[in-house]
């Protein structure tokens, strides 16, 4: 554990250092360009001292983002529209809703595909093709069309989350449900076990490692879906709306702060799925093995 924390902290320090350096180079360059356009003299010293204070930095320095984070998380009550926690909550709602429905749908489709040949040959190619439809690109249209039939609020966002998160689950579950040991399949066959028994007593277990790996991808995808769906519905709150307005008003710190909160939220969600996985595997008695 100590070792883990040490590794993580050292990497964290390295990342911050690289970040400062990159900020210096990027913003410094921009600064130099500006000064040269105005035909002003400049020195490296001057550039270095100003690089972390430019108004529209290409890359805000960590402390600038940190200040923005403090301002929008700690200094504001969570009920305030200016609190990032408030917006994270909005995004979280649609993420979780979309994730739950997406995972269920994904598992359902996978079970159908594994158990029914007609479904496999007719549905599978279209499940795959469905993901090549850039839903993110047509998210605004989805929101509009759903709005036309009076579906508004959290549902359209959750639907987009769901659309993104069901696919990894389906693919992994199809593979996982088929990955059970040949010998175990035959064992169940000799018991003339029903499809239900084969599923619940064998395949479900062999699919679990695949399922959890995909749930981690799915929950991250659900978050992305929720955020994307918040873009077109612009002004109604959520981390996506923060990103948009930050971008629209050229407030780079605000974009980065929203990004970091989004990524932190995502990490926490992925971590929670990982935790669930560990608990389950321990119940299966497999973790002590490793």
């Amino acid at each position, binding site marked *: 554990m100590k*070792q*883990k924390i*040490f*590794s*993580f902290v*050292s*990497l964290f320090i390295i*990342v911050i250092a690289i970040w400062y350096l990159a900020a210096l180079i990027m913003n410094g360059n921009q600064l130099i360009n500006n000064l040269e356009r105005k035909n002003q003299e400049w020195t490296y010293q001057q550039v270095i001292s100003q690089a972390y204070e430019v108004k529209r930095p*290409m*890359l805000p320095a960590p402390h600038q983002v940190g200040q923005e984070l403090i301002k929008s998380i700690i200094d504001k009550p969570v009920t305030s529209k200016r609190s990032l926690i408030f917006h994270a909550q909005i995004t979280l709602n649609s993420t979780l809703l979309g994730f739950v429905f997406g995972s269920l749908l994904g598992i359902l489709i996978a079970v159908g595909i594994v158990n029914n*040949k*007609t479904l496999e*040959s*007719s*549905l599978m*190619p*279209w499940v*795959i093709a469905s*993901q*090549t*439809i*850039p*839903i*993110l*690109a*047509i998210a*605004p*249209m989805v929101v*509009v*069309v759903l709005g036309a039939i009076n579906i508004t609020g959290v549902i359209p966002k959750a639907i987009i989350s769901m659309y993104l998160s069901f*696919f*990894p689950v389906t*693919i*992994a579950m199809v*593979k996982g449900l*088929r*990955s059970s*040991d*040949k010998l175990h399949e035959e064992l169940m066959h000799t018991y003339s076990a029903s499809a239900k028994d084969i599923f619940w007593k064998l395949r479900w277990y062999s699919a679990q*490692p695949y399922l959890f*790996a995909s749930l981690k*991808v799915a929950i*991250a995808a659900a*978050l*992305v879906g929720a*955020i*994307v769906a918040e873009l077109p519905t612009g002004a109604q709150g959520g*981390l*996506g709306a923060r990103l948009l307005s930050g*971008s629209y008003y050229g407030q780079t710190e605000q*974009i980065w702060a*929203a*990004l970091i909160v*989004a*990524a*932190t939220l*995502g*990490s926490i969600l*992925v*971590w929670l799925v990982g935790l669930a996985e560990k608990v389950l595997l321990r119940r299966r008695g497999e973790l002590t093995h490793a």
Partner: protein
Amino acid sequence: MSQSIKNAVYIALILLQVIIVASSEIGFYKSLPLLILVLIAAAFSMAMLLGQLTNLEGKHKSIKVLIPSLFAFMLLLTWESVIKGYAVSPILMPAPSNIFNALINNIPMLWADFKQTYLKAVLAGYIIGCSSGFIVAQWAVRNQALRDALMPLGNFMSAIPIVGIAPIMVMWFGFDWQSKAAVIVVMTFFPMFINTLTGLQSTDALHKDLMHTYAAKKSQIFFKNQLPHALPFIFNALKLNSALALIGAIVAEFFGTPIVGMGFRISTEVGRMNMDLVWATIVVAAIAGSLSYGALALLEKSLLFWHPSYREGNNSR
């Protein structure tokens, strides 16, 4: 009733539906609501036919292609019927026939968009993203400390929403395809990393012991044992990423592009209410995505011939 008579009825019902759609006035479901029953019957018929075809699948290879095609045909027929029958505004949703026309009439433009988005941005980003994910994963699997450090970082990176990255990448890498490739790199890195890592760690305990007794070097363990074990996982990531990459490129084009590209086309034509062209571009994306996926699946099948899910014919079930 014998099966062939039944089948004839099924086919007749489907044809009837085709004729209704092709010859009726727009808005026919509004004037004759009961016509919808024919559509339902046709859908049911198609399901029955598909069920029978599945049973024949072993005999003819071509049926493998026929089934999804017929399925799609029914889907399109339903779509066309609903749009035409209820006179849905083409500004909301175009009918498949309109999309097809738009596709045929704009081939040079769509090709230019495809070149820009797929052949430049997607390929470059995909290759860089997948290979870097793979490389970092195979470092991480050898080094516990690196793994401990990279896992949370990787999780963190993967959770950064693409819509947040895209404007930054446009700012850093310019308007052309390079910024889209950069977005794809960020998007595809983590799925590849996590899958490869999981796969490399999934080696059978016995095989691990075997390599241990050979005092194999890390690189030997890697190439001779871990990598083959990891291949199913790696292909999972490759397939997932092939879809992600396309989406990534298209969405990134919303945040600034030269005026060509599939994402540019979609977002611009929505604004111009040319929904048929929007969907034609989506169709191109879907075809490109499905073809790349299919190619990967074929490659997987040939490399994983030994895997229980692909083993060639034996008599067991």
